[in-house]
């Protein structure tokens, strides 16, 4: 199941509805649904923020592969930004030393089971898998 979404935070509701419809059809557990929605939003908003001037819509593909779910986000008009190499986050720093931001990719890696990044000819492809309960 796949669809394309405009490069805007305003697409988030439509993105959620589309993803939820697939997860509902596949009878995915509530906790897994939360994790999948979380990762999809973080990776999509990352594409919006870091390639705001891209001219094409972002493609989301959702697939069931036995006991796991495969999710692919593709941006065919983007500069390289390797989401798998985000800097480590020290979550134990005191609040005075913490600033908003920088948690999205850290958390995405916590809630998915694998994540791959590829960039070729201006096209970014990010694929993650989630083992289902």
């Amino acid at each position: 199941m796949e669809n394309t979404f405009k490069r805007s935070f305003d697409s988030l509701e439509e993105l959620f509805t589309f993803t939820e419809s697939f997860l509902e059809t596949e009878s995915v557990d509530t906790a897994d649904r939360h994790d999948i929605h979380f990762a999809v939003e973080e990776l999509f908003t990352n594409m919006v923020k870091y390639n705001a001037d891209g001219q094409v819509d972002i493609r989301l593909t959702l697939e069931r592969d036995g006991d796991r779910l495969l999710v692919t986000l593709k941006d065919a008009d983007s500069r390289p930004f390797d989401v798998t190499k985000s800097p480590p986050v020290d979550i134990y720093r005191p609040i005075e030393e913490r600033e908003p931001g920088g948690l999205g990719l850290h958390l995405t890696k916590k809630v998915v089971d694998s994540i791959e990044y590829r960039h070729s000819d201006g096209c970014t492809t990010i694929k993650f898998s989630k083992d289902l309960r």
Partner: protein
Amino acid sequence: MFDIGIGEEGSIFIAGRLDAAQTEKAQAFLDSVEGSATVDFSRLDYISSAGLGVLLRTQKRLMAAGGGLRLVNVSPHINNIFRYSGFDHIFEVQAAGS
């Protein structure tokens, strides 16, 4: 549908999905909070890292003045996000059902 406001018992409630499209509304409301306050999460279905940023920005401002937010009725999946973020060290968090 996202919503934020003051509930019947006088505590702040956050409801629906706090995603990157809703941070402006959430921040505008929380910027009006002073001192210490309780935030009821019982109707919050989802929070993204953008929503965490709103909470952190508010907590830093309130704690600098001696106050802070107490987050109650936090669902298990949001509680996991808090633990992975270290927010359980910088907020008082009460899980749903406890």
